[in-house]
């Protein structure tokens, strides 16, 4: 009874399959900016009706903006350092993934998969609480402040993602390039550094920038472990202003706006590069 003839279409209850939902990380161009602006504006008008004794939300933001922007600069610093560290380590890990020496490739595969599939926040906690606040090396004490540990915490998933980007890009180069290099007596290492990687840079750039935009946005996670970056400072400013509820939206809206104005151009540029490199 299971073999229905092709002509006969019996009404069968098929298992329900969820339509694949695609979650778009990118917010439509202006809507987010408008949203933040509206939040700030709405809160300002709410205040306008309440009385002149307190600073307006806009004035609060203006007053604290040097501090908040310094916090934001710290976010950017952490993200850039994490990216630098993660890229260098990821390049090494990616090359190890491509190694012909099986055990090395297997170990690096495990490392890559582990750090790619672990929640960033959990990795951050691990680094924060497992790494001591200082290390003593050659009788000199090297302090490890929270923000450095956080940077390392972010560099780990970056490393795994960059390794995957490197591996994918090198694999996407036609194997005939390897053959041509081999027939000219290039060693494997020479082929990688002189022929493969230079061709890969273009292909790697868009996904690499994508990783960066994600890191930049994720740096606010550091507030949970007490690094005084923008989100931490925003909470402190809110408290300093008496925790007025009408300040909540403008202050956090300001943080949102900062991140949006920083990350959106990166995403826009990434998309443009992707389009430019697709052909060829």
């Amino acid at each position, binding site marked *: 009874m299971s073999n229905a003839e092709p002509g006969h279409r019996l009404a069968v209850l098929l298992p329900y399959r969820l339509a694949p939902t695609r979650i778009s990380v990118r917010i439509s161009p202006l809507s987010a900016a408008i949203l933040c602006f509206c939040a700030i504006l709405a809160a300002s008008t709410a205040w306008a009706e309440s009385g002149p004794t307190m600073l307006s939300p806009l004035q609060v933001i203006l007053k604290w903006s040097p501090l908040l922007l310094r916090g934001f600069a710290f976010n950017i610093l952490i993200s850039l350092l994490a990216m630098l560290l993660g890229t260098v380590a990821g390049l090494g890990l990616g090359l190890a993934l491509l190694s012909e020496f099986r055990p090395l490739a297997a170990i690096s595969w495990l490392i890559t998969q582990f750090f790619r599939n672990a929640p960033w926040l959990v990795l951050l906690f691990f680094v924060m609480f497992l790494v001591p606040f200082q290390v003593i090396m050659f009788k000199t004490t090297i302090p490890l402040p929270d923000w450095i540990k956080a940077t390392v915490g972010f560099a780990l998933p970056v490393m795994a993602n960059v390794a995957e980007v490197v591996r994918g890009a090198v694999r996407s180069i036609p194997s005939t390039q390897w*053959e041509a290099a081999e027939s000219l007596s290039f060693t494997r290492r020479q082929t990688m550094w002189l*022929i493969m990687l230079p061709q890969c840079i273009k292909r790697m750039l868009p996904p690499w920038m994508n990783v960066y935009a994600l890191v930049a946005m994720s740096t606010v996670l550091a507030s949970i472990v007490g690094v005084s970056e923008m989100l931490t400072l925003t909470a402190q400013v809110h408290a300093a202003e008496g925790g007025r509820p009408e300040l909540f939206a403008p202050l956090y809206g300001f943080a949102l706006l900062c991140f949006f104005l920083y990350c959106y151009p990166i995403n826009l540029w990434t998309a443009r590069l992707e389009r430019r490199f697709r052909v060829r």
Partner: protein
Amino acid sequence: MATSWTPDQPIVQCVEVRKSFGALEVLKGISLSVRKGEVICIIGPSGSGKSTLIRCINALQPISSGSIQIEGIEVTDPRLDKLALRRKVGMVFQQYNLFPHKTALQNVMMAPIHVLRQDRAEVEMRARALLAKVRLAGKEDSYPGELSGGQQQRVAIARSLAMRPDIMLFDEVTAALDPETVKEVLVTIRELAEDGMTCILVTHEMNFAREVADHVYFTDRGVIVEHGPPETLFTAAKDERTQRFLSQVL
């Protein structure tokens, strides 16, 4: 590696070469020998193992059994320095396989500089001369993407020659070219042959094989069906399979 090879012995000697991909045997006992300065053409229908054979000669692919010797050196020897072997053997591919991120001149210069560690200025002089020899003077700074198929293939030939190989392998080098550019590549190969370079060509260009080759091998389904000098093979083939193939392509 010390060998007892002398130039009057075959420069390439294949004995009973077998090669399988899984259960599929593509080379079923190929034997041939090439003397220094000879031009050999291997012809035959698609899938007869021609390309596999010359890739095995270059150790790009390992053989399953048999022996391939180049200048007396056993290619299948696991202790063999494959890179040293490949310095003796230049190879040109059907799809040119130039390095797309390098100019024509850089493509030619790369291997001598990085593999042979020769002096850059001297290599550049030689590379320019080689590009001129393949009639590409003026195209030194063009990237492969800016060159026609025929031009790219001639850069590829110059790139192989820059390593000063003793033997050149050509794997269907005109198969991917436009008809009008085939000729310029064939002229280049003919000049090489006239200069005394040992050449092994896998080709579908029968007229070219007839004019240039010293010896022609006809392969089908992994075996050499028939071989001989072109004048006899092309006009008086003995085997029925050879006759049928030649009647189809000539």
